[in-house]
C-alpha cells in the first residue's frame, strides 16, 4: 500500500521558515552571512544595557538630561545608540507623584537601539489590552505598587514614535559612579513596569 502523502502545506513554523529561508537564499534575495550578522547584533550587541547607559548619564549630567528630554533621538545618538526602531524617540521622566508606562496596543513598537528586542509579554494580548485600561492592575502583576495619589501616564507607542521611561534615581546613590548607576537600571524600569530599588 502506498504511503499516505500529505498535500496540505505543513504548519510547523520551524519547517515553514526553513523552506522560506532556503528559497530566498536560492534566489539570491537574502544573504546567509547577513542573516548571521543580524542575529548576532540583536542577540548579543543591542539590549537594555544601552538604555541603562542613557539613564545613568541623565542622572549624573543635568545638561545631558535636558538635551535628552528636549530631543531624545539626538541625545541618545550622542552615546552611539541609533538606528532601526529608534529613529524618533521620546523620553518621559518619572517624578515624585508621576509614573510613566509604555505599551504598544496595536503591535510591538519598542525602542530597539536602547532596549533591544521586546520581551514576549510586551508583544502579547494581556499586556497590550490592559495597560491602557488598568495600568495600576498591570503594575500590580509586575510587583509594583504605587501610592493612590501617584499619577500614571500611559504612552501608546507607534511606528513613528517610541518611548523610553527615565526612571527616578533612587535615594542613597549619591556616591555612586555612572557605571554603578547604570548597573542598577533594569529593562522594566525603562518600560515603566518596574521601579529601581534603593541600594540596601
Amino acid at each position: 500500500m502506498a504511503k499516505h502523502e500529505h498535500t496540505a502545506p505543513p504548519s510547523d513554523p520551524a519547517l515553514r521558515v526553513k523552506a522560506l529561508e532556503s528559497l530566498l537564499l536560492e534566489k539570491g534575495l537574502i544573504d546567509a552571512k547577513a542573516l548571521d550578522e543580524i542575529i548576532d547584533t540583536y542577540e548579543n550587541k543591542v539590549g537594555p544595557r544601552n538604555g541603562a547607559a542613557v539613564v545613568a548619564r541623565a542622572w549624573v549630567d543635568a545638561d545631558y538630561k535636558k538635551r535628552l528630554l528636549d530631543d531624545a533621538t539626538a541625545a541618545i545618538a550622542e552615546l552611539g545608540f541609533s538606528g532601526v526602531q529608534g529613529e524618533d524617540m521620546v523620553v518621559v521622566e518619572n517624578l515624585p507623584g508621576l509614573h510613566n508606562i509604555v505599551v504598544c496596543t496595536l503591535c510591538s513598537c519598542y525602542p530597539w537601539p536602547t532596549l533591544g528586542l521586546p520581551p514576549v509579554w510586551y508583544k502579547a494580548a494581556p499586556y497590550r489590552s490592559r495597560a491602557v485600561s488598568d495600568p495600576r492592575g498591570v503594575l500590580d502583576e509586575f510587583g509594583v505598587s504605587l501610592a493612590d495619589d501617584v499619577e500614571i501616564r500611559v504612552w501608546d507607542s507607534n511606528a513613528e514614535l517610541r518611548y523610553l521611561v527615565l526612571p527616578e534615581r533612587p535615594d542613597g546613590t549619591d556616591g555612586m559612579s555612572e557605571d554603578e548607576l547604570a548597573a542598577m537600571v533594569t529593562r522594566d524600569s525603562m518600560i515603566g513596569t518596574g521601579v529601581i530599588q534603593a541600594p540596601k
Partner: protein
Amino acid sequence: MNGVHDLGGMHGMGPIDPEANEPVFHNEWERRVFAVTIATFGGGNYHVDQFRHAIERMGAANYLSTSYYEHWLHMVETLMIETGAISRDELNAEQTKLAKEAS
C-alpha cells in the same frame, strides 16, 4: 481600520505572566524568522506599513492563537508572495521537500 490587533481596552486576555531572565529568542526557528524578516525588510522588499497590514489581515482566531514570530512568518510569506519575489507553489514545493527529508 480596527480589528483584532487593536487590543487596547479589550477584556478577557488573561494574566501577563512575565518570564524572569527571558532569552532574546526561545528557539532556533524564531531566530531564523527574525533574521529573514530583517533581511527582506532591509532589502526593500516591502515597507513598514505593508509589514503591519500583512499581520493585521490575519484572521482573528489565527492572530490570537499564534505567537509573535508566527505573525512575522505569516507576514514575510504573504508579502514575498504578493510582491512576486516567490510563488506559493514554489514555497509549498520547498516545504514538501523538506518535510519528506525530515520524515
